């Protein structure tokens, strides 16, 4: 063996060792980050759960007072206690959304498929949102879908997704506006259902099309922003749709409105 070859072998071995060390370090960092992410998820889950119980007690006590079970209240007292109930309820909804997100972000989520009519499900979600829409004189219409065959998917998750999309549409649409839902078939052999949730709201700038689906993201994140929430609704919707191997996106024009779309491969969860 020549002298030069010996040197280059030695150099090579040294480099190889260095690379191996680096690979080990990187793996360690990855493991550590994963463990910390799991810890964060666990923490969020625990704290949300622990926040829920006392809050539920507060709401129940306030309802007992509000309903006059411990003696009649005057109008001012009743209004004030009603404020406690409503505020508590809103807080609870936000905690629930965090819990849903934590579950959807971890590996605990599986699809529980069943066959159902998506038009009927949309009507249920419309009904649930009716009081909120009525307050702002917003109409929620389902434009078609009576003739759609039943789909096979995870009903709870599709309901949650529709609830988030329709709830957002109402939230970001000014008084007297319009929200609608429509369906079409597309893709190979029309094997995909396309669902649209549209509104005549303030719209989303093209630069923000992706941002809105990111967790904790709100286009206006300032403390004085007019719309509050967890910033998790669309992140959850995306996760649920992707679990069904569908896609979700938005098309919008500022000042005119937004149209959220998602696709559902028919029969996806049957496997």
């Amino acid at each position, binding site marked *: 063996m020549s002298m030069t070859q010996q040197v280059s072998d030695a150099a090579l071995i040294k480099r190889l060792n260095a690379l191996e060390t680096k690979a080990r370090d990187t793996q360690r960092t990855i493991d550590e980050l994963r463990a910390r992410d799991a810890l964060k998820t666990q923490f969020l889950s625990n704290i949300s*759960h622990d926040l*829920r*119980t*006392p*809050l*539920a*007690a507060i*709401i*129940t*006590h306030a*309802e*007992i007072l509000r*309903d006059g*079970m*411990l003696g009649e209240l005057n109008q001012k007292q009743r209004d004030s206690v009603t404020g406690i109930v409503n505020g508590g309820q809103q807080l*609870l909804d936000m905690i629930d959304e965090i*819990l849903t997100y934590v579950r959807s972000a971890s590996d605990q989520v599986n699809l*529980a498929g*069943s066959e159902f009519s998506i038009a009927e499900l949309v009507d249920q979600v419309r009904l649930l949102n009716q009081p909120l829409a009525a307050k702002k004189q917003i109409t929620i219409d389902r434009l078609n879908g009576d003739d759609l065959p039943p789909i096979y998917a995870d*009903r*709870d998750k599709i309901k949650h997704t529709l609830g988030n999309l329709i709830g957002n549409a109402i939230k970001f649409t000014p008084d007297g506006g319009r929200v609608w839902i429509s369906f079409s078939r597309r893709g190979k052999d029309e094997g995909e259902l396309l669902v649209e949730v549209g509104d005549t709201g303030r719209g989303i700038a093209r630069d923000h099309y992706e941002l809105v689906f990111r967790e904790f993201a709100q286009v206006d994140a300032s403390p004085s922003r007019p719309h509050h929430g967890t910033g998790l609704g669309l992140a959850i919707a995306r996760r649920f749709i992707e679990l069904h191997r569908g896609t979700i996106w938005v098309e919008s024009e500022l000042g005119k409105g937004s149209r959220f779309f998602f696709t559902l491969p028919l029969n996806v969860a049957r496997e």
Partner: protein
Amino acid sequence: MPSRILIVEDSPLVTDAFSILFRESGYDVDVAGSVAQAVEVATTRPADLILLDISLPDGDGLEVLEQLRERNALPRATLAMTGHGDSRSRQKCLDAGCAEVLLKPVAISELLRRIEHHLA
């Protein structure tokens, strides 16, 4: 004689609130904070209705029903209370013999209506 409701739930904050609610509505109330305690109370003082939290410190709330069935001490109806409303955990409760599954927290007017319905 007023109907007796057994509240099985590990948070005293929640049992306090429900106790007031049910007593003011004319029911007799017992409280248990664990599976073991619930079985003991329900066998010594049979309840007409059990309001059952599903997650208890010493096990799954549904175990209460299992043990009461063995002892022939089932109430007329059991209403399960759960934090998450997915259809799978709902079905599990119904399969275990619960008459109904309520999503926590239930509005009190709704809760009283459901209880009245099951005791009628």
